[in-house]
């Protein structure tokens, strides 16, 4: 067997845990989770969420860590080499490209998002986001990210290109420093900073009370209720939640609220919507949403964790490390973001602003309004966008590492060469995403294909390798080596049947919704050859072909290996 020599390892378990947690913590934790929990009613959603965490998140994470560490011990650090080393079949090298392409594809649109966070932090600090109306905030967001037209940000006056360049350089610098000196050191500093920043903002939010006495329904208490109450009554205007009926309100008070709302919205349908625990638990859509949130939030199943775990020493624990990284992600998502974002938005702008406005709408449109109205908002707003920046950069660097490792092992490039090559590939993709910004078409398309579709596919590949190529029993033995915690009984059954089953159900539901019921815009845009959808995808396809060429021309990992030899 021909294998590359392992040159780097993590200095400590804590280092890899912080790096994996950093990879997972991002926009989904702070902006997506609170919206979903509020939408489905805190109680029912959290039951589904924790069930998905136990049966999908933790097992899938263990699978990826196990494959990664085993692959690393054999000299592989990307899904391409690791899949080959574990299967002994040359075709798995080409299937493994999926893990490298998915991550570099995600990095191409994650870096522009990262640049938004730096830009918003800067503009908040400079006082540029003290605007007069919701419409002005909407316009600022549209102009800043280029919703107004393709190429607009290249000629805008918001310094977008400078922040773009800064984001690319920051990522490349950390990656260039290497796994231990770069990623580990950066995460060891940045993750505690993220935690402290989040804590400061959380304390500020929880002490806001009722900022405007003329709007008693806009309070932190009401926001927490909207987020966490398992049973609640919402007032809905033409399908959009605009107000929550206080729990102690009488029928007469509720009727009065509806009449007032109707008077303010003449000609529009005003209804009340009951959200209950039982109704939520019987709603399959909510279970799929909760499972999807756990799956995407933990950033597992697409090759970054596998690459990180390949630098863990053979006899070091991975069972507890994986669980700790997941727990850190959950502590930030549920334990902090769950009490921070929605309550702040409701306290200043009411339920109507916080409900159903989507990840970017909440983060870059609603929250700047909240910070502008908050005492000390310039400081807290700047801190918040800085916090998002840390979340974004720790995620983005994890998505670059698999490509770097792949080029280093197959073409035996030095670090500076592999970083330069990946920087070139990513920068072109990033510029395409940055150019085709009208309606955020390029970003949406990339997120649809690489942040969602490929994620399901690569997760399926991980389970196929683990259960059917390598063998569940062998995988479990590997996971238990050096484990600092005992593995739960019945884990083999869960890994072989339950977790893949859940994964297939949510993948099936996603396909049903986006392909079979009605083609999603991201698919139709591609079929119609819209440049904003086509060019970024063509570029990633070219990158994938280039990676296939790298494998084809490489003399590394070219001999077949007997998988049985790997279990010793």
């Amino acid at each position: 067997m021909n294998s590359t020599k392992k040159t780097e390892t993590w200095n400590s378990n804590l280092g890899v845990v912080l790096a994996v947690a950093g990879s997972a913590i991002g926009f989904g934790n702070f902006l997506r989770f609170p919206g979903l929990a509020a939408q489905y009613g805190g109680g029912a959603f959290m039951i589904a969420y924790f069930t998905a965490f136990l049966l999908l998140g933790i097992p899938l994470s263990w699978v990826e860590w196990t494959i990664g560490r085993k692959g690393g011990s054999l000299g592989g650090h990307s899904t391409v080499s690791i899949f080959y080393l574990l299967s002994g079949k040359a075709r798995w090298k080409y299937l493994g490209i999926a893990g490298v392409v998915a991550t570099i594809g995600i990095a191409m649109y994650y870096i522009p998002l990262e640049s938004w966070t730096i830009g918003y932090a800067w503009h908040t600090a400079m006082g540029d986001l003290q605007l007069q109306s919701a419409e002005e905030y909407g316009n600022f967001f549209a102009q800043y990210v280029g919703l107004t037209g393709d190429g607009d940000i290249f000629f805008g006056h918001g310094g977008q290109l400078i922040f773009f360049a800064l984001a690319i350089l920051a990522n490349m610098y950390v990656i260039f420093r290497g796994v231990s000196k770069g990623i580990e050191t950066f995460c060891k500093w940045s993750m505690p900073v993220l935690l402290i920043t989040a804590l400061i903002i959380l304390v500020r939010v929880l002490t806001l009370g009722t900022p405007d006495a003329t709007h008693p329904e806009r309070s932190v208490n009401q926001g927490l209720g909207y987020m966490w109450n398992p049973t609640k009554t919402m007032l809905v205007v033409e399908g959009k939640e605009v107000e929550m009926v206080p729990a102690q309100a009488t029928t007469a008070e509720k009727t009065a609220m509806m009449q007032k709302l109707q008077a303010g919205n003449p000609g529009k349908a005003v209804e009340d919507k009951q959200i209950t625990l039982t109704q939520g638990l019987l709603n399959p859509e909510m279970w799929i949403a909760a499972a999807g949130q756990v799956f995407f939030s933990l950033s597992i199943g697409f090759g970054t964790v596998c690459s990180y775990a390949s630098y863990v020493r053979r006899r070091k624990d991975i069972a507890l490390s994986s669980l700790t990284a997941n727990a850190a992600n959950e502590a930030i998502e549920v334990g902090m973001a769950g009490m921070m974002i929605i309550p702040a938005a409701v306290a200043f702008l009411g339920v109507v602003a916080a409900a159903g406005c989507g990840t970017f709408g909440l983060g870059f449109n609603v929250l700047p309004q909240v910070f502008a109205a908050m005492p000390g908002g310039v400081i807290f707003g700047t801190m918040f966008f800085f916090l998002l920046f840390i979340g974004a950069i720790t995620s983005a660097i994890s998505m670059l590492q698999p490509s770097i490792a792949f080029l280093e092992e197959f073409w035996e490039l030095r670090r500076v060469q592999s970083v330069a090559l990946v920087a070139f590939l990513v920068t072109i993709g990033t510029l395409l995403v940055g150019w085709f910004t009208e309606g955020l078409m390029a970003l949406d398309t990339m997120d649809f294909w690489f942040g969602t579709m490929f994620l399901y596919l690569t997760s399926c590949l991980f389970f196929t390798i683990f259960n059917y190529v390598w063998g569940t029993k062998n995988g479990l033995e590997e996971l238990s080596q050096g484990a600092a915690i005992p593995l739960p009984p019945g884990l083999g059954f869960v890994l072989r049947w339950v977790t893949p089953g859940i994964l297939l159900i949510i993948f099936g539901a996603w396909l049903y919704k986006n392909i079979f019921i009605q083609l999603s815009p991201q698919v139709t845009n591609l079929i119609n050859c819209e440049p904003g959808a086509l060019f970024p995808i063509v570029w990633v396809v070219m990158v994938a072909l280039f990676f296939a060429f790298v494998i084809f021309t490489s003399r590394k990992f070219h001999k077949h290996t007997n998988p049985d030899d790997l279990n010793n």
Partner: protein
Amino acid sequence: MTIAGIITMLLSIGIVWGLFIVCCTKLVKSDKESDEES
């Protein structure tokens, strides 16, 4: 916020922070032990 809402919130936060603290404590201990061994 209702009593049920408070219970849901505290329970959820308790579970995630409890898990995180227990895992971190065990991990730091395990790191120290392996350092001593080496």
